C-alpha cells in the first residue's frame, strides 16, 4: 500500500489534493484508494493533515497515516526537525518552498533513508493560476515520481472533480510540475511510486 501524508494549513487545499490523488490513483480497474482529512477543529490557517492510501486490494484500515511513502508540505512553515519520523525508509518529502532542498535539510536535518524535494509550488501556481494555491502542483509532482500514476489520470481526476473553469489551468500546472521534476530545481534522488 502506498501512503501519502499531506501537511497544510486550513484553506490551502491539502484535503482537496488528498482527495484528487485518491480519485486519480483509483481510476484504473483493480485499484483502490482512501482519502480523508485529519478530523478536528478547523479554521483558515490552522495546521491540519490529510491522507491518501492507494492499494491493489480493498483498504480496510482507516487509521491515519503515521509513516508515509510521500509526505507533502503545502506550507513550508509546517516543516520542522523530526520530519524523518513521518517518512518510510526510501520515502520522499516534497516541500512547497522557494528554497533548495539543500537549504531545507541544513535547517531541519537530513536522513540517510529519505530525501527532501523542494518545489516552488506557490511560484508555479502564481504564474499559471494567478494565486498561490499549491496543491495541484504536487499532484503533478507525485505523478512524475513513478510510473504507476500517470499525468493523464491526474488530469482525468481534475476534469471529474474540479469545476469546469479550473480544468485548463490546473492541467497546465500538472504539466509544469512534471517538467520541473524532470528538468530543474530538484535536488536529491528520484523516488518511485511503487
Amino acid at each position, binding site marked *: 500500500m502506498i501512503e501519502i501524508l499531506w501537511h497544510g494549513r486550513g484553506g490551502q487545499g491539502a484535503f482537496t489534493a488528498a482527495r484528487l490523488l*485518491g480519485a486519480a490513483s*483509483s481510476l484504473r480497474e483493480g485499484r483502490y484508494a*482512501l*482519502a*480523508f482529512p485529519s478530523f478536528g477543529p478547523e479554521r483558515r490557517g490552522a495546521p491540519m493533515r490529510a491522507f491518501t492510501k492507494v492499494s491493489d486490494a480493498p*483498504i*480496510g*484500515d*482507516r*487509521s491515519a497515516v503515521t509513516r508515509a511513502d510521500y509526505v507533502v508540505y503545502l506550507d513550508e512553515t509546517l516543516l520542522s526537525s523530526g520530519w524523518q519520523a513521518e517518512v518510510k525508509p526510501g520515502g520522499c518529502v516534497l516541500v512547497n518552498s522557494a528554497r533548495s532542498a539543500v537549504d531545507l535539510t541544513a535547517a531541519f536535518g537530513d536522513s540517510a533513508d529519505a530525501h527532501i524535494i523542494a518545489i516552488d509550488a506557490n511560484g508555479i501556481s502564481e504564474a499559471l493560476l494567478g494565486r498561490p494555491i499549491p496543491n495541484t502542483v504536487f499532484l503533478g509532482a507525485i505523478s512524475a515520481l513513478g510510473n504507476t500514476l500517470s499525468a493523464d489520470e491526474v488530469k482525468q481526476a481534475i476534469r471529474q472533480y474540479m469545476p469546469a473553469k479550473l480544468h485548463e489551468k490546473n492541467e497546465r500546472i500538472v504539466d509544469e510540475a512534471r517538467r520541473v521534476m524532470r528538468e530543474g530545481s530538484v535536488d536529491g534522488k528520484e523516488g518511485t511510486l511503487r
Partner: protein
Amino acid sequence: MKRFLSGDEAFAEGVRLARPQVISAYPITPQTVVVERLSEMVESGQLAAEYIHVESEHSALSAAMGAAATGARTFTATSSQGLLYMAEVLTYAAGGRFPIVMMNANRATALPWNIYGDQRDSLALLDHGWIQAYAENNQEALDLALMAYAVAEDMRVRMPFMVNLDGFALTHTYENVDIPEPSEADAILPPYDAAGNCFDFDHPVNMGYSAGPEFNRYYKYWAHRDMAEAVPQVVSVVERRFEEVTGRRYPGMIEAIDCDDAEVVLVTLGSVAGLARGVVSHLRASGVRAGLLKIRYMRPFPARQIARALHGAEAVAVLEKDISFGAEGTVFTNVNSALQQAGITAPTYNFIGGLGGDNISEDHVVSIFRALQCVAAQVREQGRAAATELPRVTFLGVDSLDPEPGCGRVLGGELRDNGAGCAAPSCDGDGDSSKAQVFSVRETEVR
C-alpha cells in the same frame, strides 16, 4: 458510474436513486453532508422531493412520519444527540408501521461533548422497533440506502429502517463507489405502496390510536414476530434481486469469514469489520485459524446464524464501539444470549474500543486475536476455569491485554514484545502516547 465519494455523499446518491417524496432533516455532524447534498439535488431539480426544513430532530422524524402517513416515501437522517432527541418518535414510527428510512451517522454521545464516531447512539436504541443495519464501507452504505427501502416497504415487513454509518471513518472518508443507474434502482425498488396504512379521503381511516391492556400486547407480538421472521426472508429476497441487477452480492444478516474451522473468532460490526478482514487474512497466512464474524443487521438479531458461525470456536471476542455502563457492550450481550440459547459454551470476551473517535488499529485487532489464542490454549491445558485469565470486558487504550506470562511458549510463532510479554503497538495512529497504554498495565476486570 464510478465516483470517488465520501460515505455521506454516497448515501445521498443512494437516497436520490430511491426517490423519496418527502425529506425532512436537521443537520448534525457528521451527517450534515447527506442532507446538504440532498437539498442541492432538490434545488437543482435532480431529485423531485418535498424538502422540509425543520428546527429539530424531533420534528424531523415527526414530519417524516406525518408524510409517511399520507402514503409518501420519506427520508431523514441524524446522529447521536439528534437521534436521542427524536427517540420518542422512533417508537411512534415503529409502532405505526411506517417504512421510513433513516441514515444515522454513528457518533459519540455527550457528556463530555464529542463529535467523533462511535456506536453508542444506535446501539443504545435497539429496542424501539427499527430494523438496524451497519455498513462496512461506502459502497455498502450506498447499496443499503436502496435495499433499506425495498426491505422496509415490503408487505411482509412494514417497519422503519435505520442504516448506520461510522462517523468520519465512513461519512467523511472518500473511496470509490459504483452508482447504479436510475433504471437499475427502479428495478430493485418498486414505488411505495402504503397498502392502506395512510390517510385517504375515499377510505377514511383512524390512525395512530391507543391500545389498552387487553389489546396492546398483540401489536407488540406482531411487531416482534414480523421483524424476527419476515425481515431475514425479505432481506434475502432483496439481496438476490440486487445482485441480479447490479452484480453485487450481499450475504444476508451476517457475513462469516473463515469461521468454519476457526479456533478464534472476532465478532464486530461497521467499518471495523473492514479492518479485521485484513488481519484475519494475514493471520491465516501465518497459520493461525482465525475467523471474522461481521454482524450486518443488529435488529432483527440473527441469533441462530451467529450461533452456527461460532459453534466451533474455542474463544470468541466481540469488538464494539459502545458500552452499557455498569454492564458490558450491547453487542456482547446480544451475542452471548444467542450462544447460550444454542448451548455454546466457548468463553467470550468483550473489547470496547473506538469510543469518542478513538482509533482502532491493526495492532489492536492482532492483539485481540493473540489474547484469544492465549486463553484458548490455557483452557485446553488447564480446563474451563482458565477462561477467567482474560477479563470479560476490556477497554482498549485503558485496560491491558497482557495475558499470562509464558503465553509465548504456548502460542509459538513470533510475538512482538514490549516487555510485557505479548504483542503490543508502541503508538497509536496520531502519535498520542496516552493511547499506547493499551498493553502496558494489567488491571482487574470490570465487575
